[in-house]
Each structure stands twice: as structure tokens, then as C-alpha cells.
């Protein structure tokens, strides 16, 4: 898995889909391609009404099925940080990666006949910036972090709640 983690605070997400648009704009992704996607989930009938939006992108696995499945070496993983990305020039559009991924994450661009996927805006990361979706999230519900930092932040917040309610 890549050393990075995009954390979503579902409570603060309003399902406005700005993340999808910022991604599409930044990466000029093809029609119907969503490298990140806001998934709407609604409470089943009979339960208290509820709607949540869950941010789903690529997990950037440690041992990515897509990379193993790719016959041309187009699907790759960066040594330095584990980002899984596709090199468009080498993609032949066989869709093996789409089939192999347990979450069907790689996206199909019908115009180019090739696959696209989230690369965490690695050009921005290399320039010391954060992915487009995180940078411009309408409410700030997305955080670009690492699993260790996310864990620490969550524990810190929990500990502070204890302090707040201490008599």
C-alpha cells in the first residue's frame, strides 16, 4: 500500500461531488471516468432516514492485483511511495486490470480505449502539494495524510473529547 492515505470525515461530507469534478478537471479524464467517486448510501426502508456519502478511490495496494495482471507493464507501482498508476502510452486496453481488481477500481475511457486510474495526483505530490480532490474539497472533509498520522489524529481527537467532558 502506498505510504499515503486519503481520509474522509463522512460527517462533514455533503455529497457535493466537487472532488469528482476537481479530479476530472485536473486529470482530463474521459467521459464517465471517475478516478475518485462519491458513493451515496441511503438507510434501508423502515429504518431512520439517513444518507451518507462515501469517498472511494484506489487503495494503492501493497501487492496490487492490477499490476500483476497487466500484460504490458502499463500498470505500475512507484518504488518510493507505492503509488499505483497507469502509463497510458503502454496501455493496450485489454481490461485485465479491471477484471483483476477486487474493487474494479481502474476506469475505462471509451474515447481512448485505455484505462485511467487515480495516481493521487503524483505530479502535485512531487511538487510538495496535495491531490486535487483533497486540496479543493468544498467542506474540507478530505485529508491527505499517512495511516500513522491519521491514527494519531483520531486518538488525539478522542482524548480531547475525554478532557472536554472531564468533571
Amino acid at each position: 500500500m502506498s505510504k499515503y492515505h486519503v481520509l474522509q470525515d463522512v460527517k462533514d461530507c455533503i455529497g457535493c461531488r466537487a472532488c469528482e469534478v476537481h479530479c476530472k478537471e485536473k486529470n482530463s479524464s474521459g467521459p464517465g471516468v471517475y478516478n475518485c467517486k462519491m458513493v451515496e448510501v441511503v438507510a434501508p426502508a423502515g429504518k431512520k432516514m439517513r444518507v451518507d456519502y462515501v469517498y472511494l478511490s484506489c487503495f494503492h495496494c501493497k501487492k496490487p492485483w492490477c499490476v500483476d495482471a497487466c500484460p504490458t507493464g502499463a500498470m505500475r507501482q512507484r518504488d518510493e511511495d507505492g503509488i499505483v498508476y497507469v502509463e497510458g502510452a503502454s496501455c493496450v486496453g485489454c481490461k485485465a486490470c479491471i477484471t483483476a481488481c477486487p474493487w474494479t477500481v481502474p476506469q475505462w475511457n471509451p474515447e481512448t480505449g485505455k484505462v485511467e486510474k487515480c495516481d493521487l495526483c503524483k505530479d502535485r505530490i512531487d511538487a510538495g502539494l496535495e491531490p486535487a480532490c483533497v486540496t479543493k474539497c468544498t467542506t474540507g472533509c478530505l485529508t491527505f495524510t499517512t495511516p500513522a498520522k491519521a491514527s494519531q489524529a483520531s486518538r488525539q481527537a478522542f482524548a480531547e473529547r475525554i478532557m472536554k467532558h472531564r468533571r
Partner: protein
Amino acid sequence: MAEMKHTICGMCAVRCPITVHVENGRPVWLEGNANDAAMGKSLCAKGGATFAQRDDKQRPLGPLLRMGKRGEGQWREVSWDEAFSFITSKLEGIIAEHGGRAVMMSDRGGPFADLRQAFMKAIGSPNYMNHDCTCGRNTHHASRSVYGMGRKDFAYDYENARHIVLFGRNITESLRVKEVKSVLKGLKNGAHLTYIDPRFSVTAGKATRYWQIKPGTDYALLLAIAHVVVDKGYYDAEFVERYVTGLDEFRTFLGPYTPEWAEKETGIKAKDIEAFCFQINEDRPKVIFHPGWMYTRYRDSFYASRMLHILNALMGSIEQKGGLFYVKGAKDAGKKGLKSIAGSIPAVKEERADGCGSRYPYFDTSGGMLHLAFDALDKADPYPIKAYFIHRHNPLIALPDPVEQRRILDKLDLIVSVDVNYSESAWYADVILPENTYLERGDILRMEKGLKPGFGRRQQCVVPLNNTKAGWEIYLELARRLGKEEYLPFKTLEDIWAFQLQDTDVSIEDFDAKGFVKLSQDAIWYDRDKLSFGTESGKIELFNQKLESQGVPSFIPYTAPEEAPAGSFRLLYGRCGYQAHGQHQNNPILSQLLDENHLWIHPEPAAELGIKEGDLVEVSSGDVTGHIRARVTNMIHPEAVFMLHGFGTQVPLQKRALNKGLADQIFMQGKLTDWDKAGGGVNICQSFVTIKPAVSQELK
């Protein structure tokens, strides 16, 4: 290296501060203007689709002159010179015969309207209107009736609130970036959020209390809330004693409106209303009753909004952290404001065609009432109207009944549309003058009122890709050709900026660093012991004698809404966070997010009608029928159906959006004249439709 330019977004009417990075003349990155801490780098989906709009070729790319009949879509591309000559020669004839008053304009409105108002004054017309008759007019007039001040003279400190109450003010979807961030901060700080709407919107999902109210009964619920608040003394007695008049009359009026009574009308349990009132009493004064945004829904929305305004006063939440505050202007900072262009032109003495200020003395004349102007146009009463400028407004989808509107529009000799996009209304015009996309144009400077007042600037960041012009260029040139240059003696936008800034100690270069200039570094709060209001008494008037004398009662008894005829549903509509006012359904990116809207229908009536999730259904009202797919969900009240607004465009050149989904306004036959006599707004949620499964499951 990219150059960073600060400007103001133009994708919707919120107009957020943004920053664009330009590299070799190309815009390469866009984000919120982080110099404004409340904004940060945040940008909504519409703003995110800015470059896509600029690159899109499915919009007017040069001036167009109508060839065939109106609405037929036969256009001839003409030069700007020919377009201007055509318009000026028509206008000269009209003005010579009927006077300048025969020209009207409906404008989207907003902070850059001063120049358009100046243009109308320069040609001698009093008939400038904004879009507000289907938006905030009831709330605005309700605010004036209680505070003697407009709805925008107050703003809301959500971040520090303890309780936010929203009657259908769908803050997460009818989206203002800074506002929604502030509300979410408030919730993180532990604020309660009570949300009332027949539809469970995304905002309902964030609420600590959600009431799925029977549609059309907001006023009943508000009467009961006010009843409990007054009856139990759940109000700020000190504030009320000092600043509020008319409480005794109000108390008497509220007598019959108990929670038990309201339960029967609204479907909200009496004990829940009591519990809510108990809670706001604990939470006050940091309680915000949002008085409504687009609150032109039912025939009593003006009175519902009055209740909301009154409740804020009873909570004592005025000029209060966590409550409402007066928006401060230049004067409050001890500075001079922007010089008004329109204000420098002599007043037009003619009566307004819509009757605001004359037949309707209690209506604000600054924004007018478009539906009343349509009526004047139809009847040539009080005088003939012959020409209509539509500036970035789309009345054919914003107001009800496009068939009736077209019949009335056909009485005009000239319709000019100034817009970035093809709209239904532009398509019906005689001339389309395409405006530059907002990154390609500057605008006049805007006043930014608030706790820290200032000025803001939209500047041109990139060159226009097509044969389009900025709005200011269009109106200056038209004024010049009509011989009105003396009133608009400017050649460039810089000339206008210099005029606006002449009495201030701000120079235009001061905007370069941050995109805006603050006139006060500190938040300005008034002394709560010395508040004053714009009413005749200077107090908050629950009973407004002046309005009463003009025939508008301060309190009206409750009348239950018209029940939906058997087998019919009340038609409700609304917005999602990634579209606004039907402007971007054809945007290359945004059209991908949702290409057609759906009809929300409750599972119980859906089962009775044999309608399942995803089924194609037929929606009918009178002789109008349309098809749309059903979303079967308990998130809509059983008596209503709901659809997102702005879909079902009929403009052929909007190829991505053409005929996708269904438009709500086509089912509102006869509703152009169904309006609130007290508040002025058009009642847009008063139409009923019948629903049945479509015979064929193929979209027609």
C-alpha cells in the same frame, strides 16, 4: 512559472473569491482564494467546471441575430457592429414612440448590477428587475416589515450558534461554500440543527432533528412555535422590552395556534414541537432561524418568513455572537464606500410598469417584480413595453408556465439576451450578445459587507477564446450609440474602477495582493444597548402600522393549503450541490455527473400506482405530459413528488442536455399570476401533477 490571479467565481450567483493560476496565457489551476480564511482553497463542483465551460463550444461564440420565428433556432452570426446597430436602431424607434420606459430588463442581479441599473436609468427607464420574484422577495419584504431593513442587512454567525433552524433552507445543496463550512463548524462545536422540509435533503442528513412536514404547512408550524415561545415566556424578555413593539397584539393573535392544533395541520407531533421550543429556550440567544432564501413557495410564505424574522427577535439573537449580526458597510469602518454609477445619474421619474412603489407602495423598487412586469407587458397597462433585455437570467425556466410567458413575450418588438450560455430564454430572443466567461472578463468593483467590510474585484485573468465581450463593454457601447455617453463616460473598465474608488483611500493596485481590500482589520460589532432599526418607530415592529395602512395585515389567520386532488401530488423541486438554476446541465463535466433528473415518490403511493424504483413514469398536468424515471423513497412526503430543477432543456444546441430529464415549470400552467399579494413572490409550489406508469418503458 504560473502567475496567480485573484478574482471572483461566476459559475453561480454566490460568487466566491477564487484564485486562478495562469501559465503562458492558459488557465491551469483554479482554487478558492485562501486569503479569505473562511473560504480557504475550497471550490465547489460548479466552480471546478470553469475551464470546461470556457473550452465548451456548445454556447454562443459570437453575436447572433434571429432569422426565423422566435424560438425556431435559426441564427445568423453577425459582427458586434451589426448586432449593436440592429439593437440601437430598434431601441431608438421604440424610445421615440413610447419613451425610455418601454424598455425593461431582468437581471440575475448581484453585486455587479450597478452598471446595468445605470444603463437603464441612462436610457430613461424605471423598469430594472432582478430575479428575486422567484427567490428572496418574500423574505426581503418580510424583513422590511419587521425590522425596516432588507434581508441582506443581516447575516448569520453559524459557527458560534447553539441552534440553527432551517425551514427548507437547504444549505448543503443550495450551496454557498463559506456558509456550509461555517454551519459544519457550528455542528462540530455542538450546535443543534433543526431542519424542516417535506424532502429529506442532504441538509436533513446533517440535522439533529428532522421534521418531514406536510407540504404547504410551514406557517402553521411557525405559528405553533411562536405560540409556545410567547405563551411559556421562552423569549429574551430584556431584549424584547427594549427593542420590540407589538408583543401584546402578537400574543392575542397566537392564542388558538397551539401545538395540538399544529399537529393536525402539519403532521409534526405536539410534544415534539414543545420539546423543540424548550430546547431553543435553553439555546437562546445563540439561535438562528434562517428566514428563508428561495421562500417563494406557498401563498403564505411571506407570513411564514415574518414569523421566522420575529422569532429571531424573540430569541434576542440580533447583533449577537452565534446569532444574527448587522452586515457592516464602509461607513461603519469610518470609510467612504464605492461611488455608485447608477446613483450618479438623475432619477427616472416615471412610474414602474410592475407597480412597485406605486400600486404596491410596500414593495421595494430596487429589484422590482418580473411577473408583474409581464402582466403590464401583456395588458400594456400602465403603458406599453416594447423591448426586453435579459441579462444572464432565464425567466422561461425560473418563472412558471413557459407557454404563457412566450405568449406574452411575443408582444415585444425586441428581446436581447446577454448570457454566457444558451438558455431557454436566450433561445427565444431576437439577438444574443454572448458574454465572456467570467475568467475572461472583469466586472465593476463590489462592496463586501460583513463584520469586516471591504471591496472585492473580479478581474480579467485570461483572454476570451471566442468573439464574445464583457458585460460592461456591451452596455457602455450601447449607451454610447444611444447618445447617453454623458451618463456612462467610461472607455475602459479601469475608468469605471477609478470612478468607483474616487472618494475612497483605496487604489486599484491594492486589490492585487489578495483580490479584495478590507476596510477594517477587526470585526465590527454594534453596542447592543444602542441598536436601531429602519422602521418608523426605530424598533422591531411585530405589528406594522404603516403596512396595515397600505392594506397589508401584520398577522393573517391560518388557512390550510389546498389539498392535492385525488390521485394528484404537489410538485416540489429543488437543487443539488453540483448544478445551479439550470445553467450548467450542458457543461462538459457537470453533464456527466447527472444527465437526467428523477421523480422522487413515496413508497406507499408508488405501490398503489404500481410504480417501482427506476420505472419510467408519466407526469401530467392539464394538457402537459412528460416522462421521467422514478426514485421510490421515503425521503419525500407521501403527498408530494419532487424533482431537481433545470433539466429537460429544449435548446437543440445544448446537445449534451437536450431532452434529458424533465422540467418542473412546464407543469405550472396558470401560475404566472399566482403570487403572494403581501410579499410579492410567485407561489412556485402550488401546482399538482398526476403520476402513472408510462405505457412504454422507453424514454420518448
